[in-house]
């Protein structure tokens, strides 16, 4: 028993409810003769809860009430694209033909699933202007990892093993530099200029100086993590290509690009998509994600596999036959089986709804909503980059002459007004950053209510800053002692079984 067990709690732990002998499931009798169990190999104890079905249901329903969610309210979390997750997609994912399909079924027995994946590969390629797509990466970060490994292996095959530096702007998502290290390569960070763009002089110095022959490529987010279209993107791409490097586009902000510009046409070599952002698959409280990668002709043979291909063309007798292929120089398998198929099918259904004439509207209205909020909020908060934004924009989260109030306090106070806060302290290059991304699925009246809350909070900061410093006041819990969590390090409520020999 730890000392916290006796403190008041919102909801008891599952281990603290129930009674010995209770069970939450109704199991069948054994309809075959019972075999002898190998006693000496069996465990003595299985320390799991003992709870009835209704108790379990109430426990998790009560826990669910402690969460904020898109279904509950506005979630303007920048860089995360918290758009509506269509319900029909959830129904589709639960169809027996998908949910009960074994991943190692013969290819002839999965033609429906493979048709869907083949189409989705094609659509994602079309949307981004890339030659080929692999759906296997399980998350954006895994897509990045696949992309950087492809760049690495491409240079190896060119006999240029010394190219091991990946340029990363200082405004990048943390996954970018972490990915480079994971792939066994080196990060060279690039500064941003006062417009939030990559500083071209620094980029030229890196690409044209003595490390020119070591440049493997560059990772960049478009629009930038500030939500801005980088007007010099062509120059950036040309400078890196001229040095022999390849260009990786972090596709986290694809919601600002669909049918507006194709990254492949801008001459990017590889990018990842976040199906759980742009293509509406739910975030699930942290995951699963899905991080397909698209590449141009140069990197096509390096894609992680398997990818779906047509092995017998359509003829009078019927549909084409789909099969799996491992690209010729593939970086390999990055996950067991074929990727997060449950996310593929949701993304398929999503793109199908919008179709050729509608997909641009996703981006148009995402950008409209963001610029509307920007135009309204810049009257109250400092807007460090005063230009049209993409699907998101960054504000400085402080109020003039109220030094003690920080972005975090504004965020926490927003909870009292019934909103999820924007992203705090990212990008790192903006002091007190509040990164705001409304997405296209929000109605004007909710945007207006958010603006009003932000305005009132600015006013409160001047008249009663304590209200912000102690916020939230109406959330299920108040601010947490994170230092204590690290110091006590209580990660588990069951005593571990003794190890052999202990």
């Amino acid at each position, binding site marked *: 028993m730890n000392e*916290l067990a006796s*403190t008041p709690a919102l909801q008891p*732990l599952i*281990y603290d409810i129930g009674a010995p*002998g*209770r*069970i939450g*499931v109704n199991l*069948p009798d054994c*309809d075959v003769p019972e075999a002898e*169990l*190998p006693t000496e190999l069996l465990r003595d104890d*299985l320390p799991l809860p003992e709870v009835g079905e209704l108790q379990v249901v109430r426990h*998790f329903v009560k*826990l669910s009430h402690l*969460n904020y*969610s*898109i*279904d509950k309210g506005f*979630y303007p*979390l920048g860089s995360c694209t918290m758009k509506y997750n269509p319900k029909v997609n959830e129904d589709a994912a639960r169809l*027996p033909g*998908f949910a*009960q*399909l074994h*991943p190692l079924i013969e290819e002839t027995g999965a033609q429906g699933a493979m048709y869907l994946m083949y189409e989705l590969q094609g659509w994602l390629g079309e949307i981004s202007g890339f030659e080929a797509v692999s759906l296997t990466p399980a998350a954006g970060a895994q897509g990045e990892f696949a992309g950087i490994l492809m760049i690495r292996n491409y240079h190896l095959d060119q006999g240029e093993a010394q190219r091991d530096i990946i340029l990363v702007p200082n405004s990048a998502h*943390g*996954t970018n530099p972490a990915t480079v290290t994971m792939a*066994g390569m080196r990060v060279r960070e690039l500064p941003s200029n006062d417009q939030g763009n990559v500083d071209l002089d620094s980029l030229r110095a890196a690409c044209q100086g003595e490390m020119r022959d070591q440049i493997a490529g560059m990772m960049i987010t478009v629009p930038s993590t500030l939500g801005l279209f980088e007007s010099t993107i062509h120059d950036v791409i040309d400078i890196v290509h001229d040095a022999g490097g390849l260009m990786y586009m972090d596709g986290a902000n694809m919601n600002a690009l669909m*049918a507006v510009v194709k990254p492949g*046409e801008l001459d990017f070599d590889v990018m990842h998509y976040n199906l759980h952002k742009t293509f509406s698959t739910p*975030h699930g*409280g*942290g*995951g*699963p994600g899905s991080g397909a990668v698209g590449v141009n002709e140069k990197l096509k043979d390096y894609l992680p596999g398997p990818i779906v291909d047509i092995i017998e063309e359509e003829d009078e007798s019927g549909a084409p036959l789909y099969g799996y292929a491992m690209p010729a120089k593939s970086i*390999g*398998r990055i*996950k*067991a*089986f074929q990727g997060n*198929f449950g996310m593929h099918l949701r993304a398929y259904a999503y793109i*199908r*709804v919008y179709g050729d*004439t509608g997909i*641009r509207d996703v981006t148009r*209205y995402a950008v*409209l909503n963001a610029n509307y909020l920007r*135009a309204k909020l810049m009257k109250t908060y400092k807007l460090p980059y005063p*230009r*049209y934004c993409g699907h998101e924009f960054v504000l400085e989260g402080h109020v003039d002459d109220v030094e003690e109030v920080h972005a975090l306090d504004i965020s926490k106070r927003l909870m009292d007004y019934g909103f999820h806060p924007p992203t705090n302290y990212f990008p790192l290059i903006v002091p007190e950053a509040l990164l705001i991304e409304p997405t296209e699925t929000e*109605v004007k009246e909710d945007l207006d209510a958010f603006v009003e809350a932000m305005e009132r909070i600015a006013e409160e900061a001047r008249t009663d800053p304590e209200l912000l410093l102690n916020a939230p006041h109406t959330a299920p*819990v*108040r601010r*947490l002692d*994170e230092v*204590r969590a690290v110091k006590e390090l209580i*990660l588990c409520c069951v005593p*571990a079984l003794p190890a052999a*020999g202990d």
Partner: protein
Amino acid sequence: MSYIPHTAVETEQMLTEIGVSSIDELFDAVPAAYRFPRLELPPPMSEMEVAAEMLAISEANDHAGDYAIFRGAGAYHHFIPSAVNHMLLRGEFYTAYTPYQPEISQGTLQATYEYQSMMCALTGMDAANASHYDGATSLAEAVTVALEVTRHKRRKIILSHAIHPQYREVVRTYHQGRDIRIIGDRGRGDVIELVEMLDENTAMLAIQYPNFFGQIDNIAALADAVHEVGALLVIVANPMALSLFRSPGELGADIVVGEGQPMGVPLSYGGPYLGYFAVRQKYVRKIAGRIIGETLDADGKRAFVMTLRPREQDIKRERATSNICTNQGLMALSASVYMALMGKNGLRRVGELNYHKAHYAADQINQLDGYAVNTSKTFFNEFVVSCSRPVVDINKALLQEGIIGGYDLGQNYFHLENHMLVCVTETNSKAEIDRLVEVLGGLS
């Protein structure tokens, strides 16, 4: 307009506020030559049409709803109590983001803490993270931890050949940029032969439990041998088997990883699944992924929060050991609800049903002419059958009879041509098993 709610009037009002006359003006920074490309996509569809199309596509698959299934090999068809899906369908859980704002995420945080606790209980470990993408990537991340723990001074990683072939492929993909040697998986013998490969240069040795062939290897002496050379013992365990068999913690494992899919996650053609990752307390600061810890709020109320955050990529950037950001949070929730419903008594019972049914099937098949079951070791719910003809042909014939047969081991192991890995779970009735035996008998 599908999921876009704007009326024409609102759009006009918003444009006026921004000070532009059309939405398209907002894209002026995009190079004109590339702006607004036409997309070759199919035309839009209504919800009704999409639902019908998804149903039609789903039915063009041979799935366990229509067939009796005897295939496992890393993905298992188990019974999932209805309440699991009902909890999962709560928008409060599935439409939430990562709990970076703990005051309004206590549901996800406590559920994840409970998941960590139940995984510790199953594996016999002290701490678990909030999950990786799947069992294969969990194993790949375990390699990173072993390299970190041994301070990158050791270069040898030993993987048993009886670890899932795709997991071993993924480990190689993950670590191709590192100067390390991955050995052991070309072997054919018993686990204990791996001990001979251990030396002072070994960072870790990994085995699977039960192994890919469904067997429980005798690993009582393995941990001591691994620890003697200062390496880590990693056990890839099927959590369902841990309902019955001794926990990897009892067997001396330092890290336990695996696929959590058997605990309440549907087959879904291979994903999303659940990579679980559990360790001894002394290694917890070396692991990747999110970790939820207990603490107090400003009023002294117990609450939960993401902890040991400075390990993660968004803070540590290029010095982080992994780039992992999203996890499989929703699948961890499935596993939590599943384990809570099954509990101490139900999970043990499900484990027993798997064991009994698999043994009944093995006995029956072993009596058939032309088939021999490998009974050299204890097995859980999977076993290897040697057949007198190609497994592909047998599976074709079984499919005609409404049965999805076992996994063809010849695909991954040259010496196991004409060998089938058969899986039997609690979902297979005696009638299904008898029918499988009957059809197999007719083919021999």
